[in-house]
């Protein structure tokens, strides 16, 4: 943790309220995000118990699996979920704008510009916590290899029609969420703790209720008090007042409330099946409906507080102005979304269970690039983030005290002015180190020449030679060279990321990495057994 972040946390402890960790919002928030608050069944791999889902804060859809071990009921849940999520995604898939993309011409091997569609906006999924993101991935994995009756009439337990497609989309969202700075799928706890420092540990920040308690404590209470209540307070029946944000439930809820309710449901179902005439069946159907209603009420009672908390979090985040470079990163999310839309439309198979060597390497490279981009952009967008970089010696800010015109040698001399900056920061500047400042949104490079004496107050005079962005002529373009008195900030890190090397195509995987993966067999569905959970 950087010292600035530590200080913010300690100030939060001492003031009883979370302190800003950012001055602007570094993630895109859609105008119409889809909030998803799932619950899962303890001990089962990805057997959902229920969820609240929707785009309307006041009218969430409640989906419930009254007996999570029943395959048909789970399929019904997933089918309902698909009926909510897929239409939401579709609204973004259809609205496109024209864009250009660089592609390699298969005939000439040259890079050419191709006119393509780019979705004008992209959908956004919000889950309460990081565990929610894992659950989205798990659901995606559990669904995308399923076969519908239409795809495979022989399938022993055919999935409802749109379920495999939902699996592919959730997989895409889950995978995109691994890309630093992306906003297609966000965990509320992550976004909130990116923007506020609480008076508790990062581990405790994973609790959405406690985190919100620090950021916006109720009137007359400190964050610590409110957080403690959110974590531990229980009602007379021993149930948590602020249920966990899921997908895992509190064992006390499982054991005291849910298990008996599921048992009643099972009994009612058995009784209904055993009914001997219509009248009896009607009666027993009533019992079953009541039992199901009870479970629905239980699931709603555990998810609704979290649902409200997620929307409260969104509200708080919207109060922060969006950072300048968020739009650019969101455009990358739109490309990602459009790309997957195109793959689905083109009839490509679902994402494989494991990446091949080339795909894995490409993903890692892309994510490292995005991480560097995110770190640079957040610093450039946010003086508080830049303050951390300055403290770490990776940037320095100060006033221009002198500018001396100088020129490069050679036939066509170019401007290479010497700029002296007076700073109190202590940047790590090696010999001829390159530094960058943002000039009209573009990085201008300069070279560290040396220090000019030492100042009594501990400050330093840094002499730099500007290297580029001054135009083609001998004299620099207007405004391209800092002037005396300017307040200016240079970074030792680059502002833009270079593209990495092009890796071979998967079919060209070298012998060091196992050679070509061979003809990709289409991934088969998971084998099914009678007691399978999903």
């Amino acid at each position: 943790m950087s010292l600035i972040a530590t200080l913010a946390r300690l100030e939060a402890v001492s003031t009883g309220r979370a302190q800003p960790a950012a001055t602007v919002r570094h993630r895109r928030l859609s105008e119409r995000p889809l909030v998803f608050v799932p619950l899962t069944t303890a001990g089962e791999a990805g057997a959902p118990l229920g969820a609240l889902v929707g785009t309307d804060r006041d009218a969430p859809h409640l989906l419930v699996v009254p007996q999570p071990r029943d395959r048909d009921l789970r399929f019904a849940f997933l089918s309902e979920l698909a009926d909510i999520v897929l239409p939401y995604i579709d609204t973004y898939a259809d609205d496109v704008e024209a864009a250009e993309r660089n592609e390699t011409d298969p005939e000439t091997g040259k890079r050419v510009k191709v006119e393509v569609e780019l979705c004008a906006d992209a959908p956004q999924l919000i889950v309460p916590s990081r565990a929610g993101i894992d659950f989205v991935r798990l659901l995606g994995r559990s669904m995308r290899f399923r076969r519908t009756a239409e795809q495979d009439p022989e399938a022993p337990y055919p999935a409802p029609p749109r379920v495999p497609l939902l699996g592919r989309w959730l997989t895409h969202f889950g995978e995109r969420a691994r890309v630093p700075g992306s906003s297609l799928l966000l965990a509320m706890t992550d976004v909130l703790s990116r923007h506020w420092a609480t008076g508790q540990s990062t581990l405790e920040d994973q609790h959405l209720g406690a985190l919100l308690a620090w950021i916006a404590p109720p009137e007359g209470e400190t964050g610590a008090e409110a957080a403690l209540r959110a974590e531990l307070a229980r009602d007379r029946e021993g149930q948590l007042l602020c249920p966990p944000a899921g997908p895992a439930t509190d064992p006390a809820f499982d054991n005291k409330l849910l298990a008996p309710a599921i048992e009643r449901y099972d009994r009612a179902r058995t009784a209904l099946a055993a009914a001997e005439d219509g009248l009896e069946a009607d009666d027993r159907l009533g019992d079953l409906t009541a039992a199901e209603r009870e479970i629905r009420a239980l699931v709603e009672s555990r998810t609704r507080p979290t649902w409200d908390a997620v929307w409260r979090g969104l509200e708080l985040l919207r109060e922060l102005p969006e950072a300048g470079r968020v739009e650019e990163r969101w455009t990358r999310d739109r490309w990602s979304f459009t790309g997957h839309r195109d793959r689905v439309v083109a009839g490509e198979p679902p994402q494989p269970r494991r990446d091949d060597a080339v795909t894995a390497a490409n993903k890692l490279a892309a994510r490292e690039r995005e991480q560097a981009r995110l770190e640079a952009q957040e610093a450039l967008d946010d003086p508080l983030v830049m303050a951390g970089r300055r403290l770490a010696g990776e940037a320095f800010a100060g006033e221009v005290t002198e500018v001396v015109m100088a020129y490069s040698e050679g036939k066509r001399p170019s401007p290479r002015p010497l700029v002296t900056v007076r700073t109190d920061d202590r940047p790590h500047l090696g010999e001829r180190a390159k530094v960058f400042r943002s000039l009209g949104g573009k990085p201008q490079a300069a070279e560290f020449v040396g220090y000019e004496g030492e100042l009594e107050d501990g400050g330093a005079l840094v002499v730099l030679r500007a290297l580029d962005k001054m135009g083609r002529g001998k004299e620099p373009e207007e405004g391209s060279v800092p002037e005396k008195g300017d307040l200016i900030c240079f970074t030792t890190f680059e502002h833009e990321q270079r593209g990495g090397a092009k890796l071979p195509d998967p079919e060209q995987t070298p012998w060091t990495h196992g050679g070509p993966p061979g003809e990709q067999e289409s991934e088969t569905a998971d084998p099914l057994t009678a007691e399978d959970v999903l």
Partner: protein
Amino acid sequence: MPLPRTRGTALRHRLAELRGPDVPAKALDARALAALAANPGCKRRAILDGAGVNKAALAGALGSPSVFGQSQFAFTRGNAFEAKVKADGGAELLRLVHEKLDRTAEPPAHAHVPELTATGPEGRTARTALALREATEASGEWTLLDHPMLALDVAGSPAFLEPDAVVVHPDSSWTVVEIKSFPMLDGSADPAKVGAAARQSAVYVLALEQIAARLGSGPEGGATPAPRVRHRVLLVCPKDFSNLPTASAVDVRKQRAVTARQLARLTRIEDIADTLPAGTCFSPDLPTADLTAAVESVPATYAPECLSACELAFHCRARSRASGAVTSLGRSVRAELGGLTTVEDVLSAARGETGDPDDPAVAALRRAARLRAEALGTEAVAPCH
């Protein structure tokens, strides 16, 4: 590392006093022993565990009850899965051991599954030791020990441990089998859970090594070498979304070394016990104030990780926060604070009210505070963007 007898007896007596009159020692299981490595610097945990104090009961009596619980759904599913894995005389389980750990051996067509029931943990331990010896001598065969009982010497007292299964290979080597109900999805599993399982298995490996050493040096078996306890254990989990078993070999050498060290260090509980005021007692029947004082008489090193590893964590957290310890925000927070350990000390140093400006921690804090204030708009901001 067993203590000399007399010293051990005195220590046992002392620890019984700490538990309180008539309070039985809470048996340490493998999970508890594995957890010793979670916060080895904590003297409070060391003495409470070493003395066999029931920390959950203690936490309740202190007014900060522990929050650990298990859902009955998970419990039921775990039991059902284990039963499935061991069905048919462990045929599937042995198949997995053969496939994942010992492919060159004869495949296990049929296996011995000795009866291990006996009275009391000591009886079961003796029965297990006997079964292990017989299986080891009958080389060339596969033997499955279902829920054997192993004794491990912990600071002079035996802890009784019950692994899910131990398999004796045809080459007379032994393998620990751990059955868990979390899934292996496409060949990978939750690393935190696998780590916990590996630490737990490592405790069984240590216990088996003690038995093996005795077999190798026993009066009858003086000439035979001690059987080899394999350092790769078999972790069995449900495959993907099914309840079909799948398995993976897990190398527990590291965890074994860590746990062995921590067990050896447990002997220092005597030193900790010596520092306690006479009459210190952790019996949950005592008045809260007395109990709080008793607990406070042993220093704790609370860190947020304790919340998921120790029953007493909420109590210690409250104390840590009340005393203003910066580590209540995480161990790493201290890294750059040098000798400053409390929230107030750090903030006042940052504000320039206290602290030596030549101390680099203090100087860095002041720079951090100045930069932070500047960025938040209390001072002029350079246009970085």
